[in-house]
């Protein structure tokens, strides 16, 4: 008796005939008996409903758990920054004299304590991220005004390259904005039914909208979140210079000004600036628009310089349109690579220099009556 495998290209009878011709009996092991099959099982409509509903419910719970966790412990630096600054705004117990708004260049570039020491009074740094654009400044300002009335002054610190951008939907979803606030300014990212639906998804379905953050969290749970230290006045201290990041950013910024040499103020920023001007005139406070700190080699580049001038012309024109709006640090304060963590992010020693320069220009403006 011989044993043989049954080949997929051999039928039982063919191989059997061959074996018989050689005087051998054959026991064929039919491989088909080892192959897996689909054994279909019946299911009742009740069972199916149970599975559908159960899965839906569990998915909602999973999403809620993810949402809760991300609201408390998100490892996404940008989102955490936005959440923290909005919480800081909402937790303010007393009015401040100086409201510092803007993007991440201001977040780690403007030290409110220097405002306190030099200008007197109190200051709070509520700068977030560039993708919020000046719309973020408007919403924060309106919230502040509604609670405390006008501050002594508002400082907007923005890097040159936020002015062409529109606010991104994923960033908008991180701020506790009401539908009225959104309807008042109608950011590009929320226009149309599709975008409105996606904004709801971004806000309430992190399982889908924050998949990158969640995937990193699940795959690498041992990795600590980004170093994040906000002081009581909202300033984020950054100690470590990052030359590689600066160089990489430098190339990206140059590529952008080469690819898009003509500057155009975005619709979102145009509406935001108009609103800020209106608020300043209505409530009688001064607004100071400042360029954020910049990497010196970028500023020295000719192509960049031509683009930068276009941005300044726009901001100058805006400042000239109201006696309440002033442009300061028109020529940005620049720093070498070893004092920067990005092309527009300074480390702490440079932040002191920057803030002092900013305050000095504000003082100069106020004393000259400009």
């Amino acid at each position, binding site marked *: 008796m011989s044993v043989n*495998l049954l080949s997929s290209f051999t039928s039982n009878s063919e191989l059997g005939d061959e074996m018989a011709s050689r005087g051998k009996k054959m026991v064929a092991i039919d491989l088909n008996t080892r192959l897996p*099959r689909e054994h279909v*099982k019946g299911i009742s409509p009740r069972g199916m409903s149970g599975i559908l509903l159960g899965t839906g419910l*569990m998915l909602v719970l999973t999403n809620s758990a993810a949402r809760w966790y991300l609201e408390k412990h998100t490892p996404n630096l940008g989102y955490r920054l936005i959440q923290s600054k909005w919480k800081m705004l909402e937790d303010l117990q007393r009015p401040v004299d100086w409201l510092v708004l803007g993007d991440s260049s201001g977040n780690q570039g403007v030290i409110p304590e220097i405002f306190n020491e030099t200008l007197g009074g109190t200051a709070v740094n509520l700068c977030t991220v560039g993708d919020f654009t000046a719309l973020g400044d408007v919403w924060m300002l309106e919230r502040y005004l509604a609670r405390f009335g006008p501050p002594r002054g508002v400082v907007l610190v923005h890097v040159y390259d936020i002015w062409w951008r529109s606010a991104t939907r994923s960033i908008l979803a991180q701020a506790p904005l009401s539908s009225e606030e959104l309807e008042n300014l109608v950011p590009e990212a929320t226009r149309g039914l599709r975008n409105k639906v996606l904004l709801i998804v971004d806000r309430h379905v992190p399982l889908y909208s924050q998949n990158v953050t969640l995937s990193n969290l699940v795959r690498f749970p041992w990795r600590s979140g980004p170093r994040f230290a906000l002081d009581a006045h909202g300033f984020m201290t950054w100690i470590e210079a990052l030359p590689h990041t600066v160089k990489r950013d430098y190339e990206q910024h140059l590529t952008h000004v080469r690819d898009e040499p003509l500057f155009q103020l975005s619709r979102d920023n145009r509406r935001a600036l108009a609103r800020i001007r209106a608020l300043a005139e209505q409530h009688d406070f001064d607004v100071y628009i400042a360029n954020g700190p910049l990497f010196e080699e970028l500023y020295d580049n000719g192509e960049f310089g031509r683009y930068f001038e276009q941005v300044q012309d726009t901001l100058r024109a805006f400042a000239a349109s109201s006696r309440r709006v002033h442009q300061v640090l028109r020529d940005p304060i620049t720093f070498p690579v070893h004092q920067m963590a990005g092309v527009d992010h300074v480390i702490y020693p440079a932040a002191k220099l920057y803030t002092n320069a900013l305050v000095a220009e504000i003082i100069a403006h106020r004393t000259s009556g400009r």
Partner: protein
Amino acid sequence: MLFHSFIFPFFFLLVYGLYLSMSRSRAAQNILLLIASYVFYGYWDWRFLSLLALSTTIDFFVGHWLHRSNSQRRRKLLLTLSVCSNLAILGTFKYFGFFADSFAHLLNLFGLQAGFVSLNIVLPIGISFYTFQSMSYTIDIYRGKLTPSRSFVNFALFVAFFPQLVAGPIERAANLLPQINSPRKITAAHLDTGSFLILWGYFKKVVVADNLAAISDQIFEGYSQFHGIDLVIGVLAFSVQIYADFSGYSDIARGLAKLMGFDLMVNFKLPYFAVSPSDFWLRWHVSLSTWLRDYLYIPLGGNRHGSTKIYRNLAITMLLGSLWHGAAWNFVLWGLYHGVILIVYRIWDERAALAGSRGRGPINVPILPRMLLMLILTLIGWVFFRCASLAQIYYVFANAGLTLSEQSLHFAYALAFFTLPLLVVQVCQHVTRDLLIVIKLPILPRVVVYTFILSWIFIFGVRESVEFIYFQF
């Protein structure tokens, strides 16, 4: 249109809603599905609908003429017309460039310049699938195993049925046409199984395959920067990727068909648990391997006429089967490689059987080492399949090893992370011999598993469309 594209769910929901609303009329459903199938295919490139229509029309009429004809000579001519027209379409769009370039290269070796015009022909997606499917129809009629379809619409739907049009399974008329011709009853089991297949298919495709593609592409496309264990990981990643990609797509196709009351053939039966090459081909792309067996291997002589002819038939079948996968020499090498190991195993089987084998031959080796050996042989084959050149093939074999690099741990972790859930399910499927073991779970564990699958699809699903590997076929 791909199954994992943004628009497909909306397309399917619309078609499915209309399909259900027409449940009283099978004819209306078939017309709807035919239109939907042409829209599905035409969404990619409407120009190639003409090829699909041409192949369909030729084979429909040839089928009828074959059935009516009593003259053997005429029947052979008609069959030749069908086969040649389908192969001509396939040959022109898929193989012209390959053979032209190869011939020109050959002439170059002898110092001759070939003034070929490069046609830059676009490869219509799914062409290898629907031409083979259509050919099987006329061949089965010729063999007397099938009567031709009376309805052109029904036959056209058989050829173009959108769930399996672009990436299989390659259906047989004997299986699919009766389902098209008959009223379909959508049972709870259809919905249950179909839903699971779609879910599991998407998981395999967008979570496992697309994430492992990032590793395998990085290693294979920058291969000269990698060595040692990184190359091994690259091969492993590709092996899991190609399986998850193709079987995932097949599962989605079968799941969609099940929701509409159709049962398409199972195309993958845990191929990496195979114990021999022949076992592998009973499990991998079953619809193609059985097509090649029935329409190529057996007509060549199959297992008749002695060992030498059997080996020849195996080699030819694997060679032509490899060319089906692609018009490139690495696919030819892959096919030849599989042909060789099929032959080697067969020789081993025969000698063990003739020797009255106790202690000899593969059957007496425990199953786990046999599986492991076959897995290693399969992985070696995938090197030929994936590499873009002979130089790359040589490099991978010469430099693969156990030496680590800075990235090895990162690659290995990603490979393990995305393979583990697939492996757990597959082991359960293998142990129980049931590909639908998940739907046998009690309700609560099943809900947990489904939630896990959906959550991972949301979190890890690669969003930008990574082209389904088998679309190049």
